[in-house]
């Protein structure tokens, strides 16, 4: 083919990306089901009206959504538009993940319902267009409540029928906010600082505690529990958001209504408002087309589709005049709720506050502390959270030390080369020769090396490097040893606090020791019992006893958590049946720790049992016969012959078990969740919280991880030395 014929082809191939991209608008979202359908309809409609533009919709899993945005956009791999709730706008704006839309005229703003545009502003700039408004409302069963209750007193009269009047996730700050606002409290004050200790907030929490004691709201309720109670007719009403409709069983008669007024204050329950907006991402490749599509989504037509098909509570005023939309009673109820909502503050200060607020709620609701004190403690904690970062360090000393090490390493290599091969060049030649002969072997090993490098060494190096930095809102500052010093010297808290490294270390060591002890004791005992070759159904027992190990650990952890539930759990059920008092398992350290240990022991003993069985099978029968003839009783045989021969064989297993238990995140996180108040956290779960729930303090968490690694490396080295002794 001649060059001339190829040229247009080449030009096309080279220009294709530019050509293709100029007309593709990538939109990321976390919609499902109906909402996703509505979005798809609007995308296709837009494409039909704008030939040459393709809308590429990408549905992301909800949990990873924020993280993906954070990581992809700065690299230029992000979308043009993304649909998200407004509360993270502040952090995202600071991190440079979004682009301001430019000014929106007063007319345009008037097209939306009140309160829906402001939350999408930050620092005076508008970053997104409002699509939907989400808030809580009241779902009530029409067979238990004749009409929508207007006051809480009215709602609570239903108790006479023997059902729980109102069910919702009681210990969640998000849900509790409705009560907070009804009592005149706020999550953040005008300066965006938490003010939880205010009298109004205290009164709100005390009121809710009183409700719980009178059994007007359930104890320790999760959303799942609330749904179950509602579906079974054991709860008359549930306070929840529009997503709850999907959890109601068919056949349950219900209606949606705005939340009632609190009889004590006369103010309506005012939940937090979340505005779902469409944002223009930074580094969007097709900003003009993207903005146009965004406008289309927020337009009246777009809103009508979203309201009809997606069942969203849309922010566009005119859409509510549509006759089809008017027919949706649920939607109208949510719309009515919008008259008494409080927009959620959209900055970093709130995301740091969730955990302490929840902790205060839980403490108060289980009666461990009076509301005033719990909230005051939470305030103090949040202030600690908003901790100033460690002072930036100088990277020069570190660079020097690193170079010194590298230099020393190089010198050592050269010296060795001199010794074994008489020089660097001959050494390199020898290595090349060996590599050539062993080509096949290296090729076979290469995939494993590459995998190890990518999955183990590189992340490890990156993590270790990260520990020398401080991260805030997407900016990294070098702080040298700052993070380590903060952790080890407990610079932002005191040593006795459950949040401190040392406290957590003690808990972790105790956790590991106790668990391994039980694992080995139970595993060895069972192995000795199963050893008898004439035991009937021996095979069956072995299979049954392996099952705990075979079931994925998080399923086990969740199951056990359910069993330890104070009100509805199986364990308390058995205790009550035996005549004992039900135990509030997660209210005290000792019982929460015991619950964790019970779960982990159940998970871990089969491993030790199997290893012991293997070790036992290697002991010749004659050894025990000789011991029997020598005069040893069964117990003496066990102590002097069997165990001394089995335990050394089990040492590797015990070391492994110790390391796994030390890092057993699943059980701690899912069973006790660190309750009470973070007292049962172990090092690895504490690190997780620092990284992901306390304002993305990645550097701090990385330092934690490095410390955990050093501890375990030390333990392994010590065990190896003892083994060789």
């Amino acid at each position, binding site marked *: 083919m001649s060059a001339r014929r190829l040229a247009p082809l080449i030009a096309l191939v080279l220009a294709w990306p530019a050509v293709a991209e100029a007309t593709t608008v990538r939109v990321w979202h976390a919609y499902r089901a109906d909402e996703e359908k509505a979005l798809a309809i609007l995308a296709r409609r837009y494409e039909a009206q704008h030939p040459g533009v393709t809308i590429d919709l990408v549905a992301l899993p909800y949990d990873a959504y924020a993280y993906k945005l954070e990581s992809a956009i700065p690299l230029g791999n992000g979308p043009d538009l993304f649909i998200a709730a407004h509360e993270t706008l502040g952090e995202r704006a600071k991190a440079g993940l979004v682009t301001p839309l430019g000014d929106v005229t007063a007319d345009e703003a008037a097209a939306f319902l009140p309160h829906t545009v402001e939350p999408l502003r930050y620092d005076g700039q508008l970053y997104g267009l409002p699509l939907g408004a989400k808030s809580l409302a009241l779902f009530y069963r029409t067979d238990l409540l004749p009409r929508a209750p207007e006051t809480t007193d009215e709602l609570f009269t239903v108790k006479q029928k023997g059902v729980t009047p109102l069910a919702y996730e009681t210990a969640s700050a998000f849900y509790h906010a409705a009560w907070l606002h009804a009592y005149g409290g706020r999550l953040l004050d005008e300066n965006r600082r938490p003010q939880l200790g205010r009298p109004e907030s205290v009164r709100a929490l005390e009121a809710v505690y009183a409700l719980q004691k009178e059994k007007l709201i359930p104890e320790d309720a999760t959303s799942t529990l609330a749904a179950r109670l509602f579906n079974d007719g054991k709860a008359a009403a549930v306070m929840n958001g529009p997503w709850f409709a999907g959890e109601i069983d068919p056949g349950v008669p219900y209606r949606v209504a705005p939340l009632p007024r609190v009889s004590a204050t006369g103010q309506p329950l005012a939940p937090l408002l979340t505005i779902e907006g469409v944002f223009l991402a930074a580094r969007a490749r097709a900003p003009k087309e993207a903005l146009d599509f965004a406008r289309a989504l927020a337009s009246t037509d777009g809103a009508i589709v979203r309201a009809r098909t997606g069942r969203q509570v849309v922010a566009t005023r005119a859409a509510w005049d549509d006759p089809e939309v008017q027919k949706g009673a649920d939607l109208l109820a949510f719309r009515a709720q919008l008259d008494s909502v409080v927009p959620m503050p959209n900055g970093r200060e709130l995301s740091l506050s969730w955990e302490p607020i929840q902790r205060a709620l839980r403490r108060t609701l289980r009666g461990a502390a009076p509301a005033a004190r719990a909230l005051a403690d939470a305030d103090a904690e949040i202030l600690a959270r908003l901790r100033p970062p460690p002072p930036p360090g100088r990277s020069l000393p570190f660079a020097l030390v690193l170079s010194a090490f590298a230099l020393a390493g190089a010198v050592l290599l050269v010296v060795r080369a001199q010794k074994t091969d008489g020089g660097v060049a001959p050494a390199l030649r020898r290595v090349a020769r060996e590599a050539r002969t062993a080509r096949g072997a290296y090729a076979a090993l290469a995939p494993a090396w590459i995998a190890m490098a990518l999955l183990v060494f590189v992340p490890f190096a990156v993590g270790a490097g990260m520990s020398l930095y401080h991260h805030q809102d997407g900016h990294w500052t070098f702080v040298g040893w700052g993070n380590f010093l903060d952790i080890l010297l407990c610079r932002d808290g005191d040593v006795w606090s459950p949040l401190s490294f040392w406290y957590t270390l003690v808990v972790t060591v105790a956790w590991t020791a106790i668990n391994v002890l039980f694992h080995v004791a139970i595993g060895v005992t069972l192995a000795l019992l199963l050893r008898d070759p004439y035991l009937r159904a021996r095979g069956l027992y072995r299979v049954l006893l392996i099952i705990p190990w075979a079931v994925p650990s998080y399923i086990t952890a969740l199951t056990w958590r359910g069993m330890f539930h104070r009100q509805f759990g199986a364990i308390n059920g058995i205790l009550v049946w035996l005549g004992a008092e039900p135990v509030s398992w997660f209210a005290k350290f000792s019982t929460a720790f015991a619950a964790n240990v019970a779960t982990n022991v159940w998970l871990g003993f089969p491993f030790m049992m199997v290893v012991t069985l293997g070790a036992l099978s290697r002991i*010749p029968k*004659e*050894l025990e*016969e*000789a*011991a*029997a*003839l*020598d*005069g*040893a*009783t069964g117990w*003496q045989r066990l102590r*002097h*012959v069997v165990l*001394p*021969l089995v335990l*050394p064989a089990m040492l590797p297993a015990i070391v492994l078990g110790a390391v796994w238990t030390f890092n057993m995140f699943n059980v701690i996180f899912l069973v006790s969740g660190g309750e009470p108040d973070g007292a049962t956290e172990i090092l690895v779960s504490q690190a997780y919280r620092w990284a992901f729930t306390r304002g993305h303090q990645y550097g701090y968490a990385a330092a934690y991880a490095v410390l955990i690694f050093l501890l375990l490396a030390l333990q392994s080295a010590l065990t190896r030395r003892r083994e060789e002794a």
Partner: protein
Amino acid sequence: MATVVIEKLGKDHPGVRGAVTKVLGEISIEIADGELLVLVGPSGCGKSTLLRCIAGLETPTRGRILIDGKDVSHLEPRDRDIAMVFQSYALYPHLTVRENLAFGLKMRKTAPSEIEKRVGEAAAMLGLEALLERRPAQLSGGQRQRVAMGRAVVRRPKAFLFDEPLSNLDASLRGQMRVELMRLHQRLGATMVYVTHDQVEAMTLADRIAVLEKGRLMQVGAPGELYARPANLFVARFIGTPEMNVIPVEAACRLGLVPVELPASAAQLGVRAEGVTVGRAQSARASAINAAPQATVDVVEQLGWEALVHLLIDDIRVVARVESGAAPRPGDVVRVALAPEALHVFDAAGDRVELEVPRRERA
């Protein structure tokens, strides 16, 4: 030291589909105080099972075991006061030699001073003094064997049991250890029950031998007696190297090999290799044996001090023992005669039939 009486001992093993294997039939043996009884027989004959029943490691289905007159059949091994030396020595790998020796005494809570004394004695007796601080993994096979014996000796039990202790050793070591065992027995004067499949060991070590086959007791007696007067064909064949020549009586008569009159019940004729005379047709004794049947020499095994000549008489194979120098060559034709006093007669069931043997006629 004590007597051991095995009274009508039997053991059944449940087999497939309800069939029952008699691992041990009805066995009765009385072992005198200080006697070394060897249980010998081919593999699967039940000798190890019998030994383990005496030890208490297996439970017999029938019968009793009495040690020093006391019925121990229902006692645990640890209460029977016997010591056992295993084929694989069964030394405790995690203990030193000293600790191995002391183990039994420690289990019975013996005083430390007494333990010291006895361990020292046993070590001296078996030449283990230099090895006391070593672990079994650092010992040779022979050393381990001695430690195993030492462990038994230290306990001063009523009886010693040996389960093929020399089988794992090489030939020369086996010879040495055999002698050491005999010395030990002489020194201790202990009652010992010894199991082996090697009839040479049995012949050299035993005060008495008990031959077992398929769970049945074939014969019990002193080695000489078993050699000279085997009670049945099995014992006759099992004891003695090379194996006794067994010829069906009618074939022997037909070939003219029988120099004496045989009883009517005779079915098999046995003669050991040394009872077969081989002569050249042209030798000085030609007249005496010219009437004897002819045989072809098949193979000659030269042992240095003697030769084993394998002969073929028609279709009958016979092995003869001759002096090295007088051995014929393969292919030679020779005359064969059987010495009358060396004959053993067995009936159709394989049992010995007594023979009136006339004094050997001198020519």
